[in-house]
């Protein structure tokens, strides 16, 4: 399957490992990602907090580029970008005057034809056609995963349908079970990590993350798994510090769902960037004989 691909800014900066993993892992299951030409920043939540027009226009320009391409679907790995692009598409379905205003300035016009997909949806497509399990060379046995979705994958600022259950999504659990891992039931899978508050309001973000960490540890998870670069960076980079402040004595690796797929497919760890995590991410995999 050929799909358009919107990496977003963080996958071209601090979370480049996720960019690499998405392309490699999806191509292994028969989905080729084509990075859109000349995409721009989605505006993140900052746009909606500062400027009503930019909150739609920034993501909308990308919708135009995707709509003008030959691809019927576009994969957006970052949950925040995904949320903004899908929200803009929804707003423009009902606001004709805003759509006309934006289209006037675009070479590639928005038609609304592109289906916007999460990485989880793309992987599940592959799972349905059997392309997932046939690639598995190592079963992820012993991985007790707390699948962490965060906010942006299932909750939107507009009244719109989510691609998974809003408060108890199962996308990652389904994929991990197919790989032989044991995802856990836990209570904080869609709670907020604080997102940019980790930079501009640390006390708030650390409090939120401490609750997430405590629940995962209490349920004896041995790792977090996520599909959002912001959630991953926050939990990975600040876990040690938060542990010290809140007396949590375990630090869990925070894997991207794509790197666990990569491990199960037997891809070399170096290629997957497992060494670029903050929390120790290799010891557990070595203990489980998943990685030499």
């Amino acid at each position, binding site marked *: 399957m050929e799909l358009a691909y919107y990496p977003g800014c963080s996958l071209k900066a601090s979370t480049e490992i996720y960019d690499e993993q998405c392309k490699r892992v999806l191509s292994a299951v028969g989905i080729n990602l084509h990075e859109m030409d000349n995409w721009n920043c989605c505006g993140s*939540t900052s746009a909606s907090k500062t400027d009503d027009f930019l909150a739609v226009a920034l993501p909308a320009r990308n919708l135009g580029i995707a709509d003008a391409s030959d691809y019927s679907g576009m994969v957006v790995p970052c949950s925040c970008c995904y949320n903004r692009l899908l929200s803009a598409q929804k707003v423009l379905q009902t606001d004709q005057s805003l759509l006309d205003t934006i289209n006037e300035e675009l070479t590639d016009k928005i038609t609304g034809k592109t289906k916007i997909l999460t990485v989880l949806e793309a992987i599940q497509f592959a799972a349905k056609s059997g392309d997932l399990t046939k690639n598995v060379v190592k079963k992820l046995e012993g991985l007790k995963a707390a699948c962490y979705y965060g906010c942006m994958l299932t909750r939107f600022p507009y009244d719109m349908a989510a691609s998974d259950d809003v408060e108890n999504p199962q996308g990652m659990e389904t994929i991990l079970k197919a790989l032989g891992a044991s995802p856990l039931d836990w209570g904080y899978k869609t*709670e907020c990590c604080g997102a940019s508050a980790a930079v501009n309001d640390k006390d708030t973000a650390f409090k939120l993350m401490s609750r997430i960490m405590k629940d995962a540890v209490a349920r004896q998870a041995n790792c977090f798994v996520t599909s959002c670069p912001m959630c991953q960076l926050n939990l990975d980079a600040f876990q040690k510090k938060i542990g010290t402040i809140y007396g949590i004595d375990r630090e869990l690796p925070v894997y991207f769902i794509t790197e666990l797929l990569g491990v199960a497919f037997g891809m070399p760890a170096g290629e997957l960037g497992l060494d670029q995590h903050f929390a120790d991410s290799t010891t557990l995999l070595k203990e489980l004989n998943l990685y030499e």
Partner: protein
Amino acid sequence: MATVLELGSDKASSLAGEVMARSGQNLSACYQCRRCASGCPVGEQTGYLTPDRLIRMIVLGKRDAALDNPLIWKCVSCYTCGTRCPNDIMTARVVDTLKKMAHEHRIRPSSPKVAAFHSSFIAAAKRAGRLNELSFMGRYTMKNTLGGLARLRLRGIIQDQKDQAGFGLVLLRKGRVHFLPQKIKNRRQFKRLMRKGRAWAGSVSKSPASQE
């Protein structure tokens, strides 16, 4: 928030009307069930000023309190309030509207760092078309420092600089800092689109959000 109801005042209807039109949220549907409050993760940080209370404040016409309170700056945009509300009121959008109104009225944010973060982010994205973490963080830190200096918060400034630099160094060690700035092509056309907002805002009295 010991408030006596002052019903029917013009003040109340004009504030509520403005917030409802701009946020697209029907605040008069709120029956104070507090489902939003039980899901709001920042209650402890706002002194229990929860979404239901913010809505009540607006409906009662408490303009000063509505434009200057911890929830509008502590809100993490998790959208839990709105997905749980039986009346589909997305308080997060009300919060975002109040942020913009506070800015228009030049009310100093109770968390200046949050405001500086978002305005620096958007300025950076508008300039290059993409966000460059290095130049964005630089701009944000500078804004903070100047803001802190204006308020003589020297100790805070030093701690912030240390935190920022520490985080930067760890990213650097992990090979996660990129020095090559990302830019889009044909920025002239992009900037024209960015400027279009002014004309658009002048031509309509509502936000795109009000289309629900």
